């Protein structure tokens, strides 16, 4: 996933650099950057990257879409790009065409359930739904007596209680009360709530890894500028060692996330091996967000704690993204159960299969 040979990522990075510069965005208290950014992304076909041409999207590969999400993380992009991509992907699984405009996907937590009533309407509550407030449509995974279905729902028909995540982005509670979907179709085999959560978790892992790459970059740069005790702080061994640890966390997050993305992009089903990759990525990236973010703030001193500085755009989002599509605690329990059920002698073969 080198940046240079990927046209999707190149296009996205150019748009982010022009219209989503973190410093410009951070100074803009009115959020007037959001509309032009979304428009440019839409014109480039990026929000529907994972939707095939015949369903209204741009038909990029899973791999390219994942690389795009990593780039979005490097800019801490705060528009529903990942969410719309995931929604488009989910709808496409049931061959439902994607409409224009912002979307998000629900449920966004493994604990919430949306159910299908006898009359085909949808009910249930989904908490922590990213950007629900900004979405025109929801892609919904719902459980009925025929199993799992995928539905396109008009956001206007839902009750939305606004909330904010740690990074000040919308993370809302969506309640569906006998809502008739625009379209609903039975999900194909292999698409269920667990797999949707794994897919969302890998998307978040790539964003967290991207944010960590940027935190490393700006922390190294800052340490080479800031002078204390008559030398650059980068010359203090303790500071160097902190930055070396940040580099390790950033590298580990990126390795875990890109490996999981590669696994999903090349898999035919969400088998145990893919489960190991995806769950591990979410766990490891979340741990890296905590450790790495802590170091980045330490290196920046008080300046990094201000709302004026861009560091929080990365550090708080990386922390917030830990909670979406199952926290690392959730996935650790699930992965632990999987490993235990396979038995001690199967642990190494599972790890070595990747």
């Amino acid at each position, binding site marked *: *996933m*080198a*940046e240079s040979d990927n046209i999707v990522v190149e296009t996205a990075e150019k748009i982010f650099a022009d219209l989503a510069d973190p410093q410009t965005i951070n100074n803009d208290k009115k959020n007037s950057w959001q509309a032009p950014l979304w428009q440019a992304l839409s014109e480039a076909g990026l929000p529907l990257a994972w939707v095939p041409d015949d369903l209204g999207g741009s038909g990029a590969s899973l791999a390219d879409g994942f690389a795009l999400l990593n780039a979005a993380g490097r800019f801490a992009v705060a528009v529903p790009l990942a969410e719309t991509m995931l929604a488009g992907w989910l709808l496409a699984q049931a061959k439902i065409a994607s409409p224009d405009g912002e979307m998000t996907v629900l449920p966004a937590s493994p604990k919430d359930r949306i159910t299908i009533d006898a009359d085909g309407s949808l009910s249930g509550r989904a908490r922590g739904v990213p950007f629900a407030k900004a979405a025109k449509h929801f892609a919904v995974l719902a459980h009925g007596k025929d199993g799992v279905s995928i539905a396109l729902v008009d956001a206007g028909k839902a009750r939305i209680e606004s909330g904010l995540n740690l990074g000040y982005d919308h993370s809302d509670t969506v309640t569906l009360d006998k809502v008739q979907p625009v379209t609903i179709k039975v999900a194909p085999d292999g698409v269920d709530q667990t797999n949707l959560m794994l897919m969302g978790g890998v998307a978040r892992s790539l964003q967290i890894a991207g944010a960590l*790459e940027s935190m*490393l*970059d700006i922390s*190294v740069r800052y*340490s*080479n500028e800031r002078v204390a005790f008559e030398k650059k702080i*980068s*010359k203090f*061994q303790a*500071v*160097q*060692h902190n*930055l*070396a*640890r940040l*580099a*390790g966390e*950033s*590298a*580990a997050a*990126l*390795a*875990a996330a*890109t*490996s999981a*993305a*590669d*696994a999903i992009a090349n898999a035919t089903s969400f088998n145990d091996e893919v489960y*190991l*990759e995806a*769950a*591990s*990525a979410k*766990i*490891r990236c979340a*741990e890296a967000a905590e450790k790495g973010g802590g170091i980045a703030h330490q290196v920046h001193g008080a300046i990094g704690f201000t709302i004026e500085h861009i560091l929080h755009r990365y550090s708080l989002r990386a922390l917030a993204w830990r909670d979406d599509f199952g926290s*690392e*605690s959730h*996935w*650790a*329990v*699930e*992965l*632990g*159960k999987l*490993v*235990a*059920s396979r*038995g*001690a*002698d199967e*642990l*190494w073969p599972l*790890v*070595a299969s*990747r």
Partner: protein
Amino acid sequence: MTAALRFDPIRLPEKCEQLRKEVRAFLAEEIAAGTFDPHKPNREDTDAPEFSRRVGAKGWLGMTWPKKYGGQERSFLERYVVTEEMRVANAPTRRFFVADRQSGPVLIKYAPEHIKMDILPRICRGEICFAIGMSEPNSGSDLFAAKTRATKTDGGYLINGTKIWTSSAHIADYMIAIFRTSPPTKENRRHGLTQFLVKMKQPGIKVNPIGQITGQYEFNEVVFTDFFVPEDHVLGEVDGAWKQATSELAYERSGPERFLETYYVLTELVRAVGPNPDTRSAEGIGRLVAQLHTMRRMSVSVAGMLQAGKEPVVEASIVKDIGTVWEQQLPHRVRDLAAFVEETATNRETLERQLDFAIKTAPKLTIQGGTTEVLRGIIARGLGLR
């Protein structure tokens, strides 16, 4: 600059998986024959010369080396698979491991042809054991403070001084060591060290075993008294060993041996916990497995870089740093998690024995092969901080 820190998701090619099966079958046979007990992680002081020869006969030593030296011209990724399967099985690799990983590649790069033709095929056959003589009583992390002298004499050099912490010196046939051939210069304190091939088990060398806190004997003090090394045993550039010694380390630092040394306690925890763990155990196991998986992905990635002819010095240092910190913490985390495992007559026995050994082993992990502090200095340099 962070672009330099990408760990691409290299996958092991199909022929590696075939090889993995062969290695597993071989190890199963050895275990069945009683060569070693996979549940006794005492590999470190087990010398198994016959096992070593059988591994050599399989073609699993010097795998990446040229055929004319007895090698197989296979890939780093294939070697990687053999290494990790041996580690995970707790196979007794002490006799051949250093030669295969480090000493052989140094000889291939710097030894004269007749020495290569003599020694490398014997390494490949698993017949000889190597040691690394870098550390001295007053020079560990600060390699360039080494004082053991090599003084020019007729047809060679006379060695006087002491090496220390030399793993396997008590069984080694050869040592690759650095000695001082000139004083450091004002401009370059790294100048003046030369790398030599030393034939062990000769008069003038005394090996004194040093006990370790695990109760084992693995490393030694090696005292040289007017010990003669012939001229053609100089490896590479006289006074220029610092360049050579540092490039050697990328191989030493990123392999599976850098995060799997205490792995066995994790398997035993899963065994003791059983198929239906409580939430606490499940979460703990899940987090440890996520770490293990990530480490391994990074390590395979570095093997891929080596295969591609790159010199991933910073990446290898990151793998060693994260890897050894992980394998050091692992037994303590397993102990935490095992605290509430219901005790039956036998379920904790192996776990307890292995934890005991792993906890005693742990303190060395972040020291051997370069301390964590030194590695973080290398990473910091890679980040442009020094």
